[in-house]
């Protein structure tokens, strides 16, 4: 009771909103670690056990964490490490090396990075090594010369693991996995990847050195759990400075999650993908609509956010085309129907367009051919149409074969939304003879 009283502070509603934004953005934008990974209990335990064995008992190992994008592979590892680092002994001993397939694009760069992260640049100096294996061996040996006589455990994290399989001869993978098997030094190799078929990328000799332990990170959440998670993601912590505001906010979030329309949106989101990253995106979009003049999260905010997430980008672009460009798209649609999706060239498009103009001369101006060609090229630039055999072809521009990258539905919808679209044009889109 007294605790609550002493903590009671009053902030203006502006300050409160600002504080809410700060806390929630940390979660949605900065991937702040959750208290505990949701729905990944067994995976968490498994990984923690395994890494403990390396960090505490000096056993070597290797493991892959596999799962689609944004499902929490990186987060899972970070959470496990957070707990692991609470063990005093581990914190003192364990060395960590982070490599990322996006950054260390070849083994030379990777080695330099390993050296740097192990703080061995001075030890290595100008030494020249005959092979990758020799170099890595030297590094691990150097670690052994620690004060305790035995070598320090090293954790190698390889994010975007599949990209390392493209390195020449898979030398890095081969050597790291080799070390993890040969008990030269206590080493754990943890790979993170979104490719479920990652093992097929590995050469035989590399594969045979891998422990074949895999953790699959695929959400098995039910919708109920998902909804619970949304609520807790949006809720403010107990220690929010203005307790009253915090309580009100949390109440309103709870109510929001019971709203039928909100539930519908979340159900839709859940069905399309259960990953947390896309959920965070949705919640951020909703959160960005919260400000001093509307200091709570409302159903409309989520509704609007969901609309933004699902909008068809191509339809947006079609809306901004000139009427001439739109007419060319309609011509192409007809050509697609006539030739059954076979590619066509500008000359044919022009011909279709001309036939229309001859029938309905007053609906669209009859432009000279070069003007039409320019419009056609603009469509190419926007990648709404695509050259069949690259731009290097020697054929005249008019005769280069192209394909339309829009489907019937997109075109018809665009026509409905197009501002002041002449009726003739609309009818023509429906039937090439109209």
């Amino acid at each position, binding site marked *: 009771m007294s605790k609550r009283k002493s903590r009671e502070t009053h902030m203006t509603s502006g300050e409160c909103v600002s504080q809410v934004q700060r806390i929630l*953005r940390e979660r949605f934008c900065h991937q702040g670690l959750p208290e505990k990974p949701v729905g990944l209990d067994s995976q968490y335990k498994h990984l923690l056990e395994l890494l403990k064995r390396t960090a505490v008992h000096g056993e070597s190992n290797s493991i892959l964490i596999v799962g689609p994008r944004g499902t929490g592979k990186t987060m899972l590892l970070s959470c496990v490490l957070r707990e692991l680092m609470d063990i005093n002994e581990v914190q003192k001993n364990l060395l960590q090396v982070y490599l990322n397939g996006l950054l260390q694009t070849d083994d030379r760069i990777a080695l330099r990075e390993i050296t740097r992260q192990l703080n061995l640049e001075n030890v290595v100096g100008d030494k020249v090594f005959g092979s990758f294996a020799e170099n890595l061996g030297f590094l691990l040996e150097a670690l052994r010369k620690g004060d305790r006589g035995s070598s320090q455990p090293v954790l190698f994290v390889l994010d975007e693991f599949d990209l390392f399989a493209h390195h020449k001869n898979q030398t890095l993978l081969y050597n790291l996995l080799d070390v993890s098997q040969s008990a030269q030094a206590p080493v754990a190799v943890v790979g993170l990847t979104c490719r479920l078929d990652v093992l097929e990328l590995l050469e035989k000799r590399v594969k045979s050195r891998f422990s074949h332990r895999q953790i699959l990170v695929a959400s098995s959440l039910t919708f109920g759990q998902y909804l619970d998670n949304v609520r807790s993601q949006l809720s403010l912590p107990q220690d929010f400075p203005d307790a009253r505001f915090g309580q009100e906010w949390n109440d309103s979030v709870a109510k929001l999650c019971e709203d039928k329309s909100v539930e519908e949106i979340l159900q839709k989101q859940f069905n399309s993908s259960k990953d947390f990253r896309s959920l965070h995106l949705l919640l951020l979009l909703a959160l960005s609509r919260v400000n001093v003049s509307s200091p709570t999260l409302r159903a409309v905010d989520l509704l609007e956010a969901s609309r933004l997430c699902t909008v068809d980008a191509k339809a947006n672009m079609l809306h901004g085309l000139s009427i001439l460009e739109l007419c060319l798209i309609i011509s192409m649609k007809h050509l697609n129907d006539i030739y059954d999706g076979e590619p066509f060239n500008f000359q044919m498009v022009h011909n279709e367009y001309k036939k229309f103009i001859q029938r309905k001369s007053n609906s669209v101006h009859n432009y000279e051919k070069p003007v039409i060609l320019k419009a056609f090229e603009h469509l190419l630039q926007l990648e709404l149409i695509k050259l069949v055999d690259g731009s290097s072809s020697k054929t005249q521009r008019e005769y280069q074969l192209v394909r339309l990258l829009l489907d019937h539905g997109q075109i018809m919808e665009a026509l409905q939304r197009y501002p002041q679209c002449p009726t003739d044009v609309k009818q023509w889109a429906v039937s090439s003879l109209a």
Partner: protein
Amino acid sequence: MPVQLQHSGYSAEKLQSLTESLPCREAQASTLLALMGEPDQYSYPSIFIYGHRASGKSYVTLRVLKELELPHAAVSCVECVSPGLLFEQVLLSLFGHTAASSLPRCPSLSDFVRLYKQLCSQNPAKQTRYIVLDRAELLRDMEVNLLPGFLRLQELVDDNVTVILLSEIVWDKFRPNTGLFEPLLLHFPDYTKAELQKILARDSHPSYPQELYSFYINILLGVFYSVCRDLRELRHLAALNFPKFCEPLENGEAKESDTHKLWRNIEPHLKKAMQTVYLREISSVQWEQQQEMMEKEAMAPKGLSAYTHVELPYYSKFLLIAAYLASYNPARTDRRFFLKHHGKMKKTNFLKKHEKTSNHLLGPKPFPLDRLLAIFYSVVDSRVAPTASVFSQISSLVTLQLLTLVGHDDQLDSPKYKCAVSLDFICAISRTVSFDIVRYLYDFL
């Protein structure tokens, strides 16, 4: 009524002046600011803004960042021929000269990230740092790790940084099949006609009243809006043709209230400009000069074909004509066209046409050299027999890109050619040698 921007964490005064400099884009600026949040709060790791050319993507983004004095780096991917240049510009804008110069030669993304991390550990972000990459579609053609790397830069460098990508191409065309960190998508819609009118009318000329200029813009949009909505292009066309619009006023032929007269004067002129300036057939300077010339000589305006004019030797013209015929006529019809006594050929048999197979729709077909020569000798026949080296003339036509060589490497002995000129062009050439080409074209029988 312009919308008043209201965002906590930014000075009201600056927001006010920002609003004034962004006509018709207040809503977009406001959305962007809401997504960015207060200067010291985190923003989404990557934001992808797409919309048509000149819809204000770069303008709005950069004005917001500059006006509000937020730390940012703006880089156009067109200017970055190598990733190294890109890294250098980013580090230079965010951390200054010494930082940028400590990049190694030919830096990799790994070097960039390492240096960035090092710099921001010395100098942690108090405010979100922004990296704006304009024409982001070009990133796709650079090293494959660049685009996915920038999209998750926040995670890689562990700094409060947001990467804003700008492009006129939809996001779907960026996604590789193993996926990547999905950015937040934001669309900038095209300007409506009324908005274009409003923005363009702001450029009014100091010595003429605002209403007059606005009237002029209205006419300009009437001509160009159906083909072009690019604000930049329209603005250029407006500036270029305004003197012509003012002419009747200058020499006293019309008053500012004679709107109909002014319209009659400028409209045909603008339509002509569409054929030339808009298509970049001639530069703006040439267009101005040409206008002067035409007035002096009171020449009738020329159409397009006046500019597509190439001087060729006499026989080369016939070679080109023969090549055109060989490209667009089916070989089986050669007898009918070029043999004096071609015997009987059933007309129905000969005229087996479907619209679908019109050769002028499908484009030129390749033909062997001997067919070209056969047609050539036949069309040139009664005239002087050619003495000049036919072969060297053929190769110069190839050099001029009027003919293209399509022979395969493994068939060196029998090269094939295609004619690469348009119907208009060949008609013009034929006229100069009094040859009625249309009579010899299968498509036009």
